């Protein structure tokens, strides 16, 4: 079997979003051989997702070009981590095949995913996540002239609506489940982060409605209308698309697989972004939702710490603290309303991969029982979507992830038997 795709490096970074790119740039002057993996076709992560006709923010372009210019950083795009290969290698799958990447140190920048919650009609064609619609538009989906409703919770709603509007869609309503009071309190505190206040003003929309949530998507073959409930009214809005996400959930699967401690649903890190296992750091949304500014500074700290520069890393702590306070304010403002647990009807699908309705889960005592009885979470997405929904609906914590983390070709898994995946490590190159 060919082992040509196998790699070895000093520092392996999983995720080429803001955290991963920032980590790589800070570590690069040490001369370490750095590999960044990302499962998207281009670097940038979710927030700086690139695509045809996308104009990325200046900060993103600058970071990307500096990373591209560093001779000791290799970015592998379209590369998905599917398993760990102890002691210090990851099995990845790329379009050209499977490979083992061995490393001395590892930084997890695996980001976050949208929380989708089930309600009648949420599986109709035309319904996507809020970030999901953004990604589709950046990928080339034409929404010009379409009527779009955005719903759910969190700042991503405004960003998703702005992307849709820029692409020519008519955004009819933005339904934010968080109450008006919580948002006003949040808004009053925004002066402490002037950039964020400006951003909020820029994204602000007259169709933004606090304290309202979608409770039904209507349509025969595809979405035709949504029904939205607020304290004083129920509204039916005819539309072509519903972009609906209820905040973000840290992607902790790889961290969990490696044995990293998880606290409050995120990978736990210390002051230097080190996880609970040796030589493994984590930065960005996988350590808790906080936005790109927090991800950038956490990534820088992790990159410095992982390349033997702890003092410089520690110097960035005040910056991180400032953005952590912002993250905490966000978290307080956008707490999910328990009423969202009452949206599914007995026949509302909870697990789309295996067509499991709410009624099949309602009588179960825990995730394992539900999974064995109904196949919930046993499909291709491996419970990434329904696991988070079920956790919110029933309070069941999903079981620990097992390899493969994603559906993977058998051929790729065969690489786990490669005997010589880890050639003797060469000493790191001296700094440039």
């Amino acid at each position, binding site marked *: 079997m060919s082992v040509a795709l196998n790699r070895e490096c000093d520092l392996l970074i999983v995720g080429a979003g803001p955290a991963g790119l920032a980590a790589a740039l800070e570590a690069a002057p040490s001369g370490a051989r750095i590999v960044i993996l990302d499962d998207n076709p281009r670097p940038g992560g979710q927030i700086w997702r690139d695509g045809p006709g996308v104009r990325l923010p200046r900060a993103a372009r600058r970071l990307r070009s500096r990373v591209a210019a560093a001779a000791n950083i290799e970015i592998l795009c379209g590369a998905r981590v599917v398993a760990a290969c102890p002691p210090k290698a990851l099995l990845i799958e790329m379009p050209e095949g499977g490979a083992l990447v061995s490393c001395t140190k590892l930084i997890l920048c695996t980001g976050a995913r949208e929380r989708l919650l089930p309600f009648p009609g949420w599986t109709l064609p035309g319904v996507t996540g809020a970030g999901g619609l953004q990604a589709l538009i950046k990928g080339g989906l034409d929404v010009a002239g379409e009527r779009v409703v955005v719903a759910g919770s969190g700042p991503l709603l405004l960003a998703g609506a702005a992307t849709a509007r820029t692409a020519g869609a008519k955004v009819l309503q933005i339904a934010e489940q968080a109450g008006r009071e919580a948002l006003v309190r949040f808004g009053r505190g925004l002066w402490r982060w002037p950039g964020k206040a400006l951003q909020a003003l820029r994204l602000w929309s007259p169709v933004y409605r606090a304290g309202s949530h979608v409770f039904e998507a209507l349509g025969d073959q595809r979405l035709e209308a949504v029904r939205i409930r607020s304290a004083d009214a129920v509204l039916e809005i005819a539309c072509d698309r519903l972009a609906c996400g209820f905040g973000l959930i840290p992607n902790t699967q790889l961290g969990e697989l490696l044995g990293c401690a998880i606290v409050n649903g995120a990978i736990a890190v210390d002051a230097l972004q080190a996880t609970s296992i040796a030589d493994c750091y984590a930065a960005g949304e996988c350590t808790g939702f906080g936005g790109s500014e927090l991800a950038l500074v956490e990534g820088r700290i992790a990159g410095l710490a992982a390349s033997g520069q702890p003092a410089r890393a520690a110097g960035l702590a005040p910056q991180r603290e400032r953005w952590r306070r912002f993250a905490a304010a966000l978290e307080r403002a956008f707490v999910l309303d328990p009423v969202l647990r009452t949206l599914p009807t007995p026949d509302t699908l909870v697990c789309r991969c295996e067509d499991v309705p709410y009624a099949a889960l309602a009588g179960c005592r825990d995730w394992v029982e539900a999974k064995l009885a109904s196949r919930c979470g046993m499909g291709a997405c491996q419970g990434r979507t329904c696991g988070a929904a079920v956790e919110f609906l029933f309070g069941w914590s999903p079981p620990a992830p*097992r390899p*493969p983390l994603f*559906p993977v070709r*058998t051929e790729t*898994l*065969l690489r*786990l*038997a490669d005997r010589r995946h880890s050639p003797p490590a060469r000493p790191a190159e001296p700094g440039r």
Partner: protein
Amino acid sequence: MKCDSGAIVVGAGIVGAACAEALARRGLSVRLLDARSGGATAAGMGHLVTLDDNDAELALTRDSIVRWRAWAPAMDEGCAFRGNGTLWLAASDEEWALAENKGARLAALGEAVDLLDARALAGVEPALRTGLLGALRLREDAIVYPPNVVRWLLRRHPGQISERHAEVVEIDGRGVTLAGGERLAADVVVLANGIEAATLCPELPIVPKKGHLAITDRYPGVLTHTVTELGYLGSVHNSEGPSLAFNAQPRPTGQLLIGTSRQFGSRDRDVDGGILARMLEHAAGFLPVLRELNIVRCWTGLRAASPDSLPLIGRHPDRDGLWLAVGHEGLGVTAAPTTAELLVGAIFGEPAVIDPQPYAPERFLGRSGAREGAEDA
């Protein structure tokens, strides 16, 4: 026998559920206790397979499959029963001779078997590699989804079986003690908790044999039968180091369930990448298209194995009132119906449905058994 306070069954896997059902059918009220520590029933393949390594194994599996087929029409769709048969693949002249012998022996007993030569095999399972000499088909073999069969069994006698999530920490013939100190009394206590049985009764010679399984995404029609290699027989009895055997099963969902491995002495549940890769490589040797298919999940399970690979079914010779249904290794699902009939029949003093002697716990326990066990070890 007199049963005022009913029965307790420890272990809500397929064997415990079948025993609970057989007890309830005879009018007993049954308390079924399960620690939910992850048993073999949820981890296994659900392959109902006639095995003939020895007469006792053949008698148990044959009788059981007849009972499975009797259950089948009443089972719900979630039980996923499919009478799709097993193909035992012959890859060498030696294995072809084995197939012929095995086929003749089973045919003489009245089993529905037929031999497929290379061409006929390619006709029914074109996805298998070329160059195989043929296969022995066992038409009565089948598949099920065991966790849902457990639920189906427990629903059969409404009000008579109560299931409870509870860890038993002490057991005797008069009842059990739960973690937390609660004591439950019963006239009959059945121990059917697989690998955990030896924790409660250290005298039981039950050891774990760890297995790996993988399941693909949905590819309907790649296989129709459960296919396994005749080399399997040599492989499972290799007691040194991990062993591998090809077993692939088309699930009703269109997915392919791929096995299998055996590792001794391992109790951890982690997927071992090296073993998994070797198992898949071996499987791809028989089913080349597997290399191109997506695997969606991999997991492990622990088989509860006895020294002679036969289960312990019957009264515990030293603990009055305690009955054993443990040590089925890879045959717990296949053998559950007959195990339950043998055990519960013995509890009620009914004539045995098959000769119970080969499965009698006395072969390892009690005065004579302890000696045999010592010689075995």
